[in-house]
């Protein structure tokens, strides 16, 4: 339904944004009508939200990247890498301390592991950003330094000598790169395609090719359902509505929506996506914003990785395969344009919910997996078509 061109601009833009939400509502109603007994229950809503959380959080970052005119294909691999890292850290902490201490400091361990995991993701995001803005050499310098240091250490050098050695080599290469004084911007597609393979490989290597089973920590409860029974008094205790992971997702969504809408950083992302040259002309540090942007997006993906770990309670190097396409689909269904400059968090959240609702609903009505895949594909195309139709009507 095209928004009426005579309506005031504000209301029209609101209606435009509500498009994906309406689609979500429609699909939800359809499934509810088909299986009113088991689909529109509180419990099932909890499930749908829980299953949206991981892709949803990653899609927040993905949306930022897409708005800036980029794309991130490394999401799935990064999620796997983070989940493995978190598991390894937890295992290391548990085997390091004695067991009683470990029990007491469960929260501390969990927090530390999560922070290390998310931090690693941030570092990967920084590398991606650095390459996108054309400083491949720096990343190469960093990697070269680390490699030499690592090899030196493996071949018997003391770590107190290996670390400075690594730092010196990295610094020298970095300095050399600076001398070249030439940036070679790469398309985010290529950079993240490379990272898609490299991070997956790193995850497998770290995990030594098999899943990592850490001891149970409070981290695992992030993605469990609240234990409170479902009853009327729940209304007053929202913390029991959904699992903490879902709350994290919703909170982050609000936060990122705010950042995109109400901060300079956010407006600069839109400007860069809309016309990078104009952004540069207007005094925006395009490179700096992109660096921040990819780091931010990777941090969000890192959080998604922690949630994924807590969902499966295992550090699994093969997890998250083709989540990147899910993330892109969520953003695009939500109205973001791959050519940049357009997109909202509200839309992306609706898009992510739409996909897990379809997934859930198809299972509920007993559709087979293959039919579900066809339906999902068709809905992606249909959603984008309708969105275009609506916009053409309005513009």
């Amino acid at each position, binding site marked *: 339904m095209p928004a009426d061109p005579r309506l005031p601009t504000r209301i029209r833009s609101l209606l435009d944004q509500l498009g994906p939400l309406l689609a979500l509502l429609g699909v939800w109603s359809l499934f509810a009508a088909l299986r009113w007994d088991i689909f529109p229950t509180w419990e099932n809503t909890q*499930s749908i939200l829980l299953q949206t959380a991981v892709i949803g959080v990653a899609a927040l970052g993905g949306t930022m990247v897409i708005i800036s005119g980029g794309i991130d294909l490394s999401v799935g691999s990064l999620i796997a890498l983070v989940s493995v890292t978190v598991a390894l850290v937890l295992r290391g902490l548990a085997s390091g301390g004695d067991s009683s201490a470990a029990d007491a400091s469960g929260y501390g361990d969990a927090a530390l592991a999560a922070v290390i995991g998310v931090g690693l993701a941030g570092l990967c995001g920084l590398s991606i950003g650095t390459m996108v803005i054309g400083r491949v050499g720096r990343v190469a310098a960093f990697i070269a330094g680390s490699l030499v240091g690592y090899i030196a250490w493996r071949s018997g050098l003391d770590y107190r000598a290996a670390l400075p050695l690594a730092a010196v080599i990295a610094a020298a290469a970095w300095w050399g790169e600076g001398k070249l004084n030439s940036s070679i911007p790469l398309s985010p597609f290529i950079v993240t395609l490379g990272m898609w393979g490299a991070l997956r490989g790193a995850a497998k290597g770290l995990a030594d090719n098999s899943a990592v089973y850490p001891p149970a920590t409070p981290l695992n409860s992030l993605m469990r359902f609240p*234990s409170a029974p479902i009853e009327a008094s729940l209304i007053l205790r929202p913390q029991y509505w959904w699992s903490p992971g879902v709350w994290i997702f919703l909170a982050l969504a609000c936060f990122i929506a705010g950042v995109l809408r109400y901060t300079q950083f956010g407006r600069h992302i839109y400007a860069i996506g809309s016309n990078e040259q104009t952004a540069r002309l207007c005094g925006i540090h395009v490179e700096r914003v992109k660096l921040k942007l990819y780091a931010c997006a990777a941090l969000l993906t890192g959080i998604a990785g922690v949630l994924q770990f807590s969902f499966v309670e295992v550090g699994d190097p093969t997890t998250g395969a083709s989540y990147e396409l899910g993330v892109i689909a969520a953003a695009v269904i939500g109205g973001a344009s791959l050519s940049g400059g357009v997109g909202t968090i509200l839309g992306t959240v609706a898009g992510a919910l739409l996909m897990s609702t379809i997934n859930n609903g198809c299972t509920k009505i007993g559709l087979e997996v*293959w039919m579900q895949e066809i339906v999902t594909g068709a809905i992606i195309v249909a959603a984008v078509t309708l969105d275009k139709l609506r916009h053409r009507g309005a513009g």
Partner: protein
Amino acid sequence: SKPAASVDAQPAGGAVAPAAGKRTIVMIPKATQSAFWNTVRRGGEKAAQEFDIELLWKGPSRENDRAGQKQVVQQFTNAGVAGMLLAPTDSRALAAEVRSATAKGLPVLIFDSAVEGEAGKDYISFVATDNTAAGRLGGKHLMDLVGKGGKTILFRHMEGHESTTKREDGALEEMKTGGAEILSHDRYTGDSAAAAQETALNMIDVIREADGIFASNQTASEGLLLALRKRNLAGKIKFIAFDASPLLVEALRNGEIDAIVVQDPVNMGYQSVKLMLDHLDGKPVDPLVVTDVKLATKANMDDPAIKPLLE
């Protein structure tokens, strides 16, 4: 039956083996990352150390990747290794490769899953679990637990995956003959625990009605277990899992899982390497070696016969 003489007559490989005369054998699993295959590898490594050979380990990066595995096999066919241990993802797809390797004088031993061809001629031996029997074992135990008329669910692994399909068929057969009311048996849970868990969560209402569930591989079992935990159903429904992993073993101890059908991957790996070395040394080998499948329950899980299988 006896191994065919033609295979024995082949000159022992290793002529082009690198690295200081140590014999090199390559082991090709269905995928390089999963607990099961890495346990097989451990068995292989144990034998490799014992007999002082070098064991290479390479496979496709994803389960069920026929083309990927075929490429790996081709790459090793002319790589100067002395022998090849292969767990074929598909009995048909890998048959030609196995035959051509054998024809080129590279002895091949098949483990875990079957390949078309004749043991002792196209390949030297077949070391495996009987998957149909394993499925039956699980299915039978489930029927013992839920009884006739019990409501059951079968959780499948992936489309087109041969060994799990056999297990699923075996279990399904037992359920049918046991007179179960089968609530669902067409759910493929995908290749990861996360996907399996989502599927289980989406079917939670069906699961709630069930008396017992059989999951046909490790990821499906893990996903189901996690979903049951999330919904506080763990331990309330009879649950037979397949293949051991720390998560599943712990659940077995807690009583969240009633039984795990366990194969003997360590032994499978060890036996495979040992048989290959026997063959290379010119000793006759059995063309078919069936490794054990056992049912681990809370009661027997600390038995000396079972305990190693759960590690």
